[in-house]
């Protein structure tokens, strides 16, 4: 990657935890004959560090429950990280109050996963799209706003004449186009897309992905793309980050990760992609189950399932190191050369 470019978004050692204990009285347990107060904490994101550069498509992949969506919501400020820093264009944004974040919201938008829940069912398309303009560009007249709505609707492939319709009158794909239009309304430079195509048909997925790429070309957008679909990743990504149990395993340029996966987890994940003409399945079978994020294992989070795990993996948390062409891998084995 171009190291001279200034990072648009910078995450430094971000942690996000959720308290799932429930009420006050549920925190108490009897242990050895006396009550002990104990909280159940899900560690959703653990010390994630990365930069996203202007104009790239940064994908985050991982299986369900690995913290991808939590990461996306932390980046957009919907969730407050427990510790760590988030910088946007050089300014720290994670410790700002809701209203202090307003100027950044104009520059950073989000597209959600479920097209059926992400539009207010009681708002017409025009109202949904008008709202962001209303707040971020109060100087616009009504005509200017309507012009802009028509323009953006045209761009995302929804006929502007449908502006007075309600969300339930549209199909899933069309709704997702409207969601994208809403994100584009404020003319942002950075869009976080949280599994934007996983709720859609395969044929519609391709259309929506093309729409994302078109918009990127026209407006010079930067994407952070959350997905679990590896074919989507291959289609659009400049760089790919692989997450497992809230930690980054590997961060590589798009082509590199498919041709030359380094981390044992990435290898296993990529071997699960079905290929045409393959005689014998060469899946790497992992042992055991995904560990619960309630009780993270010591050392490397992956060591219980890793076929290469050694003593050091159970004790020390691996730190990412640069391997090859701009690929960062967090694995003792790769670093010391016993994973090939």
């Amino acid at each position, binding site marked *: 990657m171009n190291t001279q470019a200034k990072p648009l978004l910078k995450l430094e050692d971000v942690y996000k935890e959720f308290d799932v204990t429930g009420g006050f009285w549920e925190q108490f347990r009897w242990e050895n004959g006396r009550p002990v107060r104990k909280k159940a904490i899900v560690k959703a994101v653990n010390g994630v560090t990365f930069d996203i550069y202007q104009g790239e498509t940064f994908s985050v992949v991982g299986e369900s429950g690995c913290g991808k969506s939590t990461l996306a919501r932390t980046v957009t400020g919907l969730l407050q990280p427990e510790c760590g820093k988030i910088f946007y264009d050089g300014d720290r944004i994670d410790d700002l109050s809701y209203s202090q974040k307003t100027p950044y919201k104009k520059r*950073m938008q989000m597209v959600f996963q479920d097209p059926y*829940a*992400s539009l*207010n069912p009681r708002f017409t398309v025009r109202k949904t799209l008008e709202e962001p303009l209303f*707040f971020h560009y109060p100087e616009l007249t009504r005509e200017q706003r309507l012009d802009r709505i028509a323009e953006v609707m045209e761009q995302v492939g929804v006929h502007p004449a449908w502006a007075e319709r309600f969300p339930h009158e549209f199909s899933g794909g069309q709704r997702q186009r409207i969601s994208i239009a809403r994100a584009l309304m404020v003319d942002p430079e950075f869009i976080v897309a949280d599994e934007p195509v996983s709720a859609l048909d395969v044929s519609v997925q391709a259309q929506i992905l093309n729409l994302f790429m078109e918009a990127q070309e026209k407006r010079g957008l930067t994407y952070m793309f959350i997905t679990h679909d590896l074919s989507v990743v291959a289609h659009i990504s400049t760089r790919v980050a692989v997450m497992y149990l809230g930690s980054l395993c590997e961060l590589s340029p798009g082509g590199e990760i498919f041709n030359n996966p380094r981390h044992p987890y990435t290898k296993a994940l990529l071997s699960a992609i079905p290929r045409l003409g393959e005689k014998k399945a060469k899946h790497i079978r992992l042992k055991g189950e995904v560990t619960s994020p309630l009780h993270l294992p010591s050392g490397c989070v992956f060591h219980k399932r890793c076929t290469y795990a050694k003593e050091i993996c159970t004790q020390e948390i691996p730190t990412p190191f640069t391997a090859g062409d701009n690929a960062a891998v967090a694995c003792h084995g790769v670093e010391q050369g016993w994973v090939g």
Partner: protein
Amino acid sequence: MKKYWRRFKNSFFWFSFRRDPVAIASFSILVILAILSFSAPWIAPHDVYESSSIDIMNSELPPAWMEEGSSDYMLGTDIQGRDMLSAMLYGMRLSILIGLGAVCLQAVLGVLIGLIAGYVGGKVDSFLMRVADVQLSFSTLMVAIIISAIFQLAFGLAKYEDLAVPLLIVIIGLAEWPQYGRTVRASVLGEKKKEYVEAARVIGLPRWWIMFRHILPNTLSPVLVISTVQVANAIMSEAALSFLGLGMPVTKPSLGSLINSGFEYIFSGSWWITLFPGVLLVTLVVVINLLGDWVRDVLNPKLYKR
């Protein structure tokens, strides 16, 4: 306007209304009763608030079709010589007024508190909901009895007669807001996790705007459903209070105070003073409840009946 009318005519609401005879019947009865009661000053044969028109000699006359009945007083007269029909029309007007007023107050209080508790959450939520629990653990009647007894003592009976209507509205309104508060909070908790609310937060809309423009309209259908039932409940509470002598004074009788004033004479043969207002009250409450049931079925698609 025409557009809205067309949308209404094409809606499922209108469609299911037309196909439900119970809904049509109860709605028509309710409308007739409401029109009758609110036009009481013009259509009632006698003005029951005008003491000079009341003659004590006419007291306890039976209905017109009975032997001693007079054609002047179709449904007979009460113990003070007031025309029962007129008194019932005026009384129903008061009952409906108090019912609607109390429900408006309940709804405003409950929706506001429920919305804030549900959206803000945390300690605010716990505090407001415990207040609601405490409020619910007292029965409406008990709260009402205490307040109106204190009020009658403090301001005297003369003042009480003037202020009885707003006072009853406030009492019944304050006593029942937790019904709304809890319902609204529950649906706010469901709505605020949906992605359209998150999208609104990503856009950076002000909190109050998200609460009132995005979440509130999506929580209104349960509010509408309980509103109908609550109107009936409020009318019942008012009648119960009046029956206990803590509601509307005898000079301005509501349906409840009419029932009460006749109750003492029911065994001396003057059954009509209690029976007619009683039948009217039951009809009113039943009709509103039936309508409420229908509204609940229509607004909750999970309960489609086939």
